[in-house]
């Protein structure tokens, strides 16, 4: 379960990186398309079929990742944390989970108040850092715990 915990934590961090990449990719594509005379409004956003420019995929991926995939991973991380028996594992899984929820809220809020979008960008860095730290600290904490005899008896979970 500790391995799963570590993988899930790093997965959150990797996903944050992916989110930043696909979003900028999408916006770059939008800029190029508008520059070529394309019109991007609600009607185009809501139209079906072939997207007006291929980088729309980045914006769509950002939404799917942010709404479904990352909260799912964060939830699994939280559940895994119950079984790691490492000090602070739950605390950091909760922190990551809360930052993920906050990130979704800020992203959604950005549609009403664009300034919230700026905090969405800032919170992404906090989440990335927290997820990396959560994964890294588990190894150190587990090693420390392994030196404790009572922890060793409870080890193979």
């Amino acid at each position, binding site marked *: 379960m500790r391995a799963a915990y570590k993988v899930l934590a790093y997965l959150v961090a990797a996903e944050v990186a992916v989110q930043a990449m696909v979003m900028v990719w999408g916006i770059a594509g939008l800029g190029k398309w508008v520059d070529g005379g394309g*019109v991007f*409004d*609600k*009607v*185009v*956003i*809501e*139209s*079906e*079929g*072939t*997207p*007006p420019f291929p980088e729309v995929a980045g914006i769509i991926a950002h939404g799917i990742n942010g*709404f*479904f995939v990352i909260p*799912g991973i964060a*939830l699994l991380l*939280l*559940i895994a*944390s*119950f*079984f*790691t*028996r*490492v*000090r*602070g*594992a*739950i*605390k950091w899984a*909760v922190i990551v989970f809360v930052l993920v929820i906050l990130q*979704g809220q800020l992203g*959604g*809020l950005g*549609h*009403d108040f664009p300034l919230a979008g700026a905090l969405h960008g800032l919170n992404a860095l906090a989440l990335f850092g927290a997820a990396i730290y959560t994964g890294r600290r588990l190894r150190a*904490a587990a090693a420390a*715990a392994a030196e*404790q005899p*009572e*922890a060793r008896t*409870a080890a193979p979970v």
Partner: protein
Amino acid sequence: MTRHSGRRPPGTPRPLRIALPIVATVAIVAPLAWLWQDSWVPAVYSVMDMGHPDYGAGAVPDTSGGGGHGGHMQGQMPDHDMPTPRLVTDMIADPARPADIRVDLVTRQQMLTVAGRSIAGFSVNGTSPGPQILARQGQLVEVHLRNESVADGVTLHWHGVDVPNAMDGVAGVTQDAVPVGGEFTYRFVAKQAGTYWYHSHQVSNPQVAGGLLGSLVVTPKSGIVQQVDVTAVAHTYGGMRTINGKAEDFRVPARAGQRVRIRVTNTDNGPMKIWTGGSYRLLALDGTDVHQPTDVSDRSLTVTAGGRADLEVTAPSDGTAVRVQLSKATAVIIGPPGVDVPVPPQPASELDLLAYGTPAPLGFDPAHPTRRFEYRIGRRPGFVKGRPGLWWSINGRLFPHVPMYVVREGDVVVMHIENQTGEVHPMHLHGHHEVVLARNGVAASGSPWWVDSLNVPPGESYDIAFMANNPGIWMDHCHNLKHAAQGMIAHLMYEGLDTPYRIAGPADNQPE
């Protein structure tokens, strides 16, 4: 959060160390699992069983439930001592009256060619948009539909026309979807002159986007004063903006000084801004004339998804042309053939319909409603049909736990529509026209603002009113058809009515 991790005091009993994580996991997973299972709808169901009845502080029918079903998806059968409900299929135009206009429409699933590109879509009589149906006010229109090849089945909904309920064309509510090889005949009297459109209301999200639609125009008995009368059906095929199916500007030849009526029809899922280089007059909205409209310049007009706007534009007297922009992408160009003008800049401000034109009698008194409803649109995480996501909620609850607004014929209904989400919602009530009383608490002061498709932007609220004068079971939904497919659907039903049709079932009815 229980702190049971890490180096535990040696005294912690082992069973507890095993049990606590499991309990914590169950505490998280169990509510999610319950919400997940609660979000499913039965494989086959009646819309009568959907959600919960809302009587809007009005009279509650003597018998429990709206028209005979129990509500709450319990699948209760009507009690035997209840009066037999009337069926939506009884709500038809006079069957003895011969039709004044007969139209045959054949629907096909086919590749469409737009701007040289091939797109998978749908056609009506071989084209998309399909043929325009032109009727004169008071005529009985009879449309014979045959589905040649649309695999999912089709229906035709007469968007904006207050047809008898059985003719509303909603699969699973007012009829079964017409399968390949099947037929259906629609009959209705075109009582109100104006600009309308028709589209499929079976699997409507992909079918309408794919072009299963057409224009319907009802001209007044007295005729119109404009010398030129054109319809501009705006539709986006696979990201390509078109007018009347062509991805290019729509040229309308007009001599200097001629008055042109442009019937703008927005068949897309999002609102469209329109504006002109000179001035225009908004003659009608959603098939209802504006009372004493005035000239508008430097203001754009928002035509919401599903909405129509009739503009009057005069061809310039100096022999030049004028552009009517339907978004920045496409335009109607009015003037002598071959003459063009640059794209006029998009005005920074919008025409406010709350104060446009002058007041006129409504024909009923909304100050003393017999029903008051709320239609609060929200968005929250949860499950719909087992799928997790951020879903649209109506009055705080997710599909299928949506309100069933119950009215009685003759009711004066007032509804408060509020958009608490970050996206615009074009709200469309079938079978009725509603008048805007107020926006964000500010009372309307202009012409009666009648709509069947109301643009409700984020954070805004509207108070609307209508007369319950067309018995039936009517959808009241978001006409961003993607949103409808995501569960943004409620119904307005008249008490004592029932439908023999089912969602899903043998005909595989999927109205959204």
